């Protein structure tokens, strides 16, 4: 009886525990990454939503369709409130420190008209792509008007060209790059004085043999109704500390939605492995609408298809994925802009008029730091952190590669091979194998040589034996 009762109690207890599991840290999305084989594998979450803010909460009135923001180097966040044609500057404590609604342009009151892009230089000058006014406006740190840059003037531009600047970036040398709507030639480049100097980084026309076939068999009237082969236009850009320009295209067919353009407009983005930075590897591809370059060659792209943020390192390896579309805190309706500062990521939601702040988890901080050390070549320091990363996520292939490379430098070739194999890095595995093979042969040279000589002697003896037997048989036959 007692035994029966205790069993019942035990079962009940077990069921209770089963029904009420320990509350997990609530996260509105799942962490995942892609393995070498292109399979989505679970991964710890690198960043969790830590705060959301709207215009009302700050006390400046609701943001109406904000379309861009910029995290300046001093920690201030510039929000471009397009619908209200104003700029709201927030400090690190999320207080509104300034609001720029208009400015004095040659003695006249002037303002923005549906601006879509904002950029702030190191010196604090604000550049705004004032889209419907068809100009780029430069303001100084206090919000006073400095100059305006109108449509590019050149013979190469057709007279029917309609200039709608959408995004603007400025490099260290003061050159201004403008991404404009309906411009397929690339990014419009102005020199420091605001003179048009040319287009850069043209996307190549995508060639489709099927389309070409239909084009050759169709009549002239039909052909005119077909979509024209035009290069894909850029939709956003960012500039890194070395003056390289990162661009995105929203085209879902493109193999290179992210580009890193050098000053002469050539794509120099590093892609390690067979999958470039294209976001989700599903049939419904990701469409990147913004890119943010943080230090050490790490860049984050914002995907408008599923509301995800993909973070890549300078080799094009996916570090982690966060975010999702949804209605919970930490998810988005219509994300349009991404910025980051220190270990925080900001995402601007246009429809909700809201900024979501994400803070790095322990895993995220570890990966960031390990990757930083790794990218500056401190492989041994990085390896210690990669070990920690592996403790949290045994599927993290980059960590295996990082440790493998460190072991390779330390001369632990055999172990390096194991790690590099786990990380699926054939190139470095092969390097480790070369070293290991040489080392192994040197250590066992005596053994191999003895074996080889013994084998040679055995073969020679066997042949002689066979020959004498044959001769003997021949003699027998003769006899």
């Amino acid at each position, binding site marked *: 009886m007692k035994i029966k009762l205790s069993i019942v109690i035990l079962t009940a207890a077990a069921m209770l525990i089963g029904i009420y599991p320990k509350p997990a840290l609530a996260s509105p999305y799942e962490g995942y990454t892609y393995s070498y*084989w292109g399979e989505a594998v679970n991964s710890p979450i690198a960043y969790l939503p830590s705060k959301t803010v709207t215009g009302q909460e700050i006390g400046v009135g609701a943001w109406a369709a904000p379309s861009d923001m910029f995290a300046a180097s001093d920690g201030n966040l510039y929000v471009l409130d397009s619908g209200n044609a104003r700029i709201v500057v927030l400090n690190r404590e999320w207080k509104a420190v300034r609001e720029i609604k208009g400015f004095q342009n040659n003695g006249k009151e002037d303002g923005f008209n549906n601006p879509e892009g904002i950029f702030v230089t190191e010196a604090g000058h604000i550049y705004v792509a004032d889209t419907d006014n068809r100009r780029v406006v430069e303001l100084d740190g206090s919000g006073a008007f400095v100059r305006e840059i109108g449509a590019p003037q050149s013979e190469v531009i057709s007279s029917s060209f309609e200039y709608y600047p959408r995004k603007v970036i400025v490099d260290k040398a003061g050159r201004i790059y403008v991404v404009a709507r309906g411009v397929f030639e690339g990014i419009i480049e102005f020199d420091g004085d605001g003179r048009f100097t040319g287009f850069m980084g043209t996307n190549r026309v995508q060639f489709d043999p099927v389309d070409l076939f239909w084009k050759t068999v169709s009549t002239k009237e039909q052909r005119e109704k077909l979509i024209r082969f035009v290069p894909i236009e850029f939709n956003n850009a960012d500039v890194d500390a070395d003056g390289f320009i990162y661009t995105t295209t929203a085209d879902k067919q493109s193999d290179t939605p992210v580009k890193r353009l050098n000053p002469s407009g050539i794509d120099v983005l590093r892609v390690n492995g067979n999958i470039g930075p294209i976001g989700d590897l599903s049939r419904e591809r990701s469409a990147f609408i913004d890119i943010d370059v943080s230090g050490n060659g790490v860049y984050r792209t914002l995907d408008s298809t599923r509301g995800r943020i993909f973070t890549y390192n300078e080799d094009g390896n996916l570090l982690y994925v966060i975010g999702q579309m949804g209605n919970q805190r930490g998810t988005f309706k219509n994300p349009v802009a991404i910025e980051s500062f220190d270990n925080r990521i900001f995402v601007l939601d246009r429809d909700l008029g809201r900024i979501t702040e994400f803070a790095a988890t322990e895993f995220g901080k570890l990966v960031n730091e390990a990757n930083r050390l790794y990218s500056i070549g401190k492989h041994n320091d990085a390896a210690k952190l990669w070990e920690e990363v592996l403790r949290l996520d045994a599927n993290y292939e980059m960590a295996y590669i990082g440790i493998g490379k460190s072991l390779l430098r330390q001369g632990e070739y055999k172990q390096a091979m194991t790690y590099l*194999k786990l990380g699926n890095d*054939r*190139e470095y*595995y*092969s*390097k480790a*194998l*070369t070293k290991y*093979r040489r080392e192994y042969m040197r250590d066992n040279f005596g053994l191999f040589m003895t074996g080889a000589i013994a084998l040679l002697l055995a073969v020679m003896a066997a042949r002689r034996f066979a020959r004498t037997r044959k001769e003997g048989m021949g003699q027998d036959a003769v006899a």
Partner: protein
Amino acid sequence: MRLLKEMKYSLHVAFHPFDGFWDLKYENKGKLRIALIILLAVTVTMILNRQYAGYVVNYNHPLELNSIDELKYIVLPFLLWCIANWSLTTLMDGEGKFKEIVIATGYAMLPLILVYLPNILLSNFITLRESSFYYLLESAAGLWFIWLLFIGTMTVHQYTVTKTIATMLLTVVVMGVIIFLGLLFFSLIQQIVSFAYTIYQELSLRA
């Protein structure tokens, strides 16, 4: 002992194909069981190759390896080839019997074993830079196999060179046709089964 001798003869065929295939057909030296043993050995070799080829040249996803798949890639094409070749050559004045075609094809596959097995061993010691040797040997094995198959087909059916080439190409086409008909047959059977099942369901629900 006799089996060993027959095995040794398959080596002779691989290295002296003209001579070897002739004796295979006219001196009755070819044995069906040897052909089938070679087929089995090729299958095993391919399984070993997928599993144990050196990491540097082995791009197979370990979780997707399936030995049953090798039946699909080796035994099925082998049978298809023999059937297609036989169907074609009976119409094209070929002198070969079905058994002879199976034997010739089986013996022709021997180089795949001879080259692939040492190649697996080699691949474990080579680096990425030397991997072209591995691929070179692999393609050499393939070419050797096709060469033997060509001589085998020519000897078994007593064809001229051009006719042999034409027959071999046509055989590949016929293999495609057989696969097509097979799939058609299966899908029609499926339709019929589902049709019968629907009628049964309808009747049983009405009753």
